[in-house]
Structures are given as structure tokens and as C-alpha cells.
């Protein structure tokens, strides 16, 4: 039997108990290196030693391959190796899906976007506004300002009031229509306005008098803000605006003083 086949058979037997292929290959290479080192040592100490004898002595010094096989099988448990391999493939797959989902959703401004805002976002944010609970949501007025357009003859001044609905169930962001369909805005002079969204009431008769509502003002994980715009005629700093939300699960009333005047370009 030639040198290579004896060595190869010995190595195959020794590593045959390792069930995880990558480990088996690495341990085999390591053992082969050890044996070659031992043979090189023997040849250095005994320069005249025949190669077959050097091989036999090196192999016998490594011990019985059957015993080594059992020991190696005990040390190299396969599940960690398989889990490691599976986790690598899983990460690659998830990254690929992430790219595909991100690409396919790129045209959708709201559904499936985790956070975002539109150009009609909150102009002046207020802190500590009134809060009320309805359903599983906490409602709070988070923005109020008088928007002035000194350089735009085509636009009238208006008041912006922003209502935020947030929930600890971040996967249940409120539907903007649930707010817009149910809100009545009471202006500083007591005029009651039904909310209106140009998206929702497309093709239908608009309520009269109506305020325009931007359903996609701003949103994030578990919260959404809807901005209401009402006429600012006769507004004085400190005038109050009230939002009445009357839904099938209950009614809340929130109000805020509009104190800030913001010049819009």
C-alpha cells in the first residue's frame, strides 16, 4: 500500500466521527500537518530512516485512529456548526428580502413606511398640550400656529392645529380617516368646521363649512399626526381652537391656545 493511501485512510478514520463537514475538513488538515511535522522531525533526527518507517512511527505516535475518532466526535458537536451555517444563510436571505421589499415599497408614501412626513408637517410644535385617551390611543395637540403668507397673494392666512394619536401597540398606527371623519374643529370665533380631506372626499360633496386636513402630516412607529387648517380671519394671539373627536368608541375634546405667528415663504 502506498504512502498516501495509508495516511489518507488513517486521517479519514480519525475524522469520520465529526459530522459537520467544515470542521471535518479543518481537523483533517490540522492532523495531516501534525503528522507531516512529526515525520520531518524524525527525518531530521534520523536522516537515514526510510519514508515508510517514518510514516508508521509518526502515525503510531498519534495513537489509535478509532479512539481519536470517538474523542473528536465528542468534542466537535455538529449542531453549533449547522446553526452557524444556517444563521449565515438566513442573514443573507433576510438582507436580500429587505432590499426587495424596500425597492418594491419605494413608491408608497405611507403604507409600509416606518417614519415620514409630508410638506404640510407641523410648523410650530408645542409641548405639554392637553391629552385624552380614546380606544387604545392617547390623543394630544402637538402643534398650533397662525401661518401667514405675506409674499403670497394667492394664499390666505390660516391656523394650523396638529393632533397626534399614539399607541404602545406600535403595529396599530391609527388610520388617518378615523381622525378626519370624526373631528369637528371649533375656531376662535366659535365657528364649527367639519374636517375634510381632499383625498378622502375626492368626488364627493365636501362638508360645509369645512377645514382642510392633511392626513399624512407626520407619522412614526406607533403614532400619527394629522394637521388641520382653518381660516385665521380675526385671529388674535392666545385665541383658542378646540378639536372635538366623536367616534363610535367615545368622545374627547382637546383645545389649545394659538400663540405663535409664523411667516411662511
Amino acid at each position, binding site marked *: 500500500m502506498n504512502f498516501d493511501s495509508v495516511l489518507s485512510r488513517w486521517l479519514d478514520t480519525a475524522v469520520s466521527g465529526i459530522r459537520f463537514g467544515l470542521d471535518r475538513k479543518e481537523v483533517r488538515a490540522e492532523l495531516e500537518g501534525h503528522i507531516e511535522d512529526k515525520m520531518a522531525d524524525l527525518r531530521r533526527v534520523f536522516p537515514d530512516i526510510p519514508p515508510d518507517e517514518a510514516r508508521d512511527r509518526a502515525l503510531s505516535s498519534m495513537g489509535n485512529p478509532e479512539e481519536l475518532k470517538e474523542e473528536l466526535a465528542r468534542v466537535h458537536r455538529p449542531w453549533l456548526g449547522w446553526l*452557524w451555517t444556517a*444563521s449565515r444563510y*438566513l*442573514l443573507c436571505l433576510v438582507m436580500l428580502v429587505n432590499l426587495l421589499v424596500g425597492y418594491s415599497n419605494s413608491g408608497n408614501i405611507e403604507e409600509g413606511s416606518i417614519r415620514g412626513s409630508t410638506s404640510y408637517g407641523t410648523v410650530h410644535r408645542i409641548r405639554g398640550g392637553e391629552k385624552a385617551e380614546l380606544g387604545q390611543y392617547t390623543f394630544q395637540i402637538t402643534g398650533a400656529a397662525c401661518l401667514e403668507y405675506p409674499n403670497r397673494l394667492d394664499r390666505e392666512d390660516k391656523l394650523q392645529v396638529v393632533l397626534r394619536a399614539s399607541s404602545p401597540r406600535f403595529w396599530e398606527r*391609527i388610520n388617518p380617516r378615523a381622525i378626519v371623519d370624526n373631528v369637528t374643529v371649533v375656531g376662535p370665533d366659535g365657528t364649527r368646521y367639519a374636517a375634510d380631506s381632499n383625498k378622502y372626499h375626492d368626488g364627493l360633496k365636501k362638508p360645509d363649512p369645512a377645514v382642510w386636513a392633511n392626513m399624512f402630516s407626520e407619522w412614526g412607529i406607533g403614532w400619527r399626526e394629522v394637521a388641520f387648517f382653518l381660516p385665521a380671519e380675526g385671529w388674535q394671539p392666545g385665541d383658542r381652537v378646540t378639536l372635538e373627536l366623536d367616534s363610535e368608541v367615545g368622545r374627547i375634546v382637546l383645545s389649545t391656545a394659538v400663540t405663535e405667528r409664523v411667516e411662511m415663504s
Partner: protein
Amino acid sequence: MKKWWKKLKRRLESISRGDQTVFYLTWSVLLSFGIWMRLGCPLPSKEMEFRRMERTHLLPRSEIVLSYGTRSGDGLQVSREDGSVLALDGTELYLRGRWMAGVLEDKAVVACLSGNGRYIRSFHLNSGPSLVPLLWRGEYLDNVGYWVAHGPGKTPEGNPAYVYNYHNFAPFLLLNAPEEVSSAEITVRLEGEECSGGGWQLKDGIWLLGIEREQQLDKWATGGTAYILRLFREDGSLLLEREGVL
């Protein structure tokens, strides 16, 4: 980027296989969470989706009376997104989209759970039998439903063949129907034309009515559309006739 990637690779190689596994799994979970969020946080069952829609639209919890199925293995549905319901007489009725409906004391809630048309809406119920249209977003009646008659027949050229006939209809749920009802008929008056249709019983007190029209339907605007509902006993005599406005 290349430099960063090499650095990451070197660092990963310097840690144990167990730690590498933890690293890969942690990132997989984080990225999967991102995917789930981007897909609109889908929930595992249709009932959970319906309940979530109720909550996110500030509607009270209703009792589910119509729930789409996806049992059809016969491949007759037009789109994979179409759900189906099985009538008591064995007819499989397909609905474009995945529709569910629930009832409260004096209200019905109808939702379409699929695609961009995800939509929920509540309707006030009258005392006694009440009609609830399955409307697309934008409040239009349309051919949302269809059923398929199939069997041996002939092609237009007169050759023998196995023939499938798709019957499209604008569907209405009939709730609180009396027990004695054996058949139902609905007539809607649209632009001077009267369109009628029959119905199928889904379960006790609940029917699905449908108005068929041979021609391609344009969208039928509701809001003021007059209807006549007729319910018949088993012997064919009229049990109830009600006129109303959709």
C-alpha cells in the same frame, strides 16, 4: 465600504463560532423586524387583521358574521387575492378582495382586508332585515362578486366542450333575515333602469344578495339609490317587501 467590509470580516473571524452565530441571528431578527414593519405589520390570522382594523378606525368590537375563505383549489377565482364564501346550497361565491363583516347591536362593519383597497366602514342597521352593500373605497357599487357555473356544454361554434360561465354581481349582505326566508330578491333603480338579483343563504339569518348585469358595469354611484328587497317563503309566497335607499 470595501475597507469596512474587510474590517468586519476580520473581526468576525477573530471571534468564536458561537459568537458569530449570535451576531448573524441578531441581525437577522432586526432586519426581519424592519421587513415586517415595511410590509405594514401583517398579523398571522384574518380575524386579528380585522380586529386591528376595527381598533385603528376607532370602531367597537363586533361579532364576525362573514369571513372570507381561501379554500378553492379549483382555480376558478380570477385573482389570488379573491376570497370566497360557501353558501348553504354548496355554491362557492367569490369576492374580489378579502372581505369580512361583523355586527353590533345596531351597526354592521364591513372590511376588505387585501391590497391597496384595505377598507373598513360601518353601516347603521334597521330593525329587522337590513341590507349592507359591499362597497369599494370611494362608495361605489361594483361587480365585487362572482360565481362560476361550469359543466359540459358547447362552444360558440357549437363544438362540445367543458364550459365555464362567470357571473359577476354587485354584492349586498342581508342581515337579520327571518328564519322562514327561502329565497330573496333585490331590485335597484339606477338611472331609470331596474336591475334585479337573487341571493344565497350563508348561515342562519345571513344572506349574500347579488345584482347581475350582462353588460360590463361602470361603477354605480350610491347615495340615494333606491332599492326594493323582497323575501319569499318556501312555497313562493311573499314574506316581506321593503323599499329603501342605499
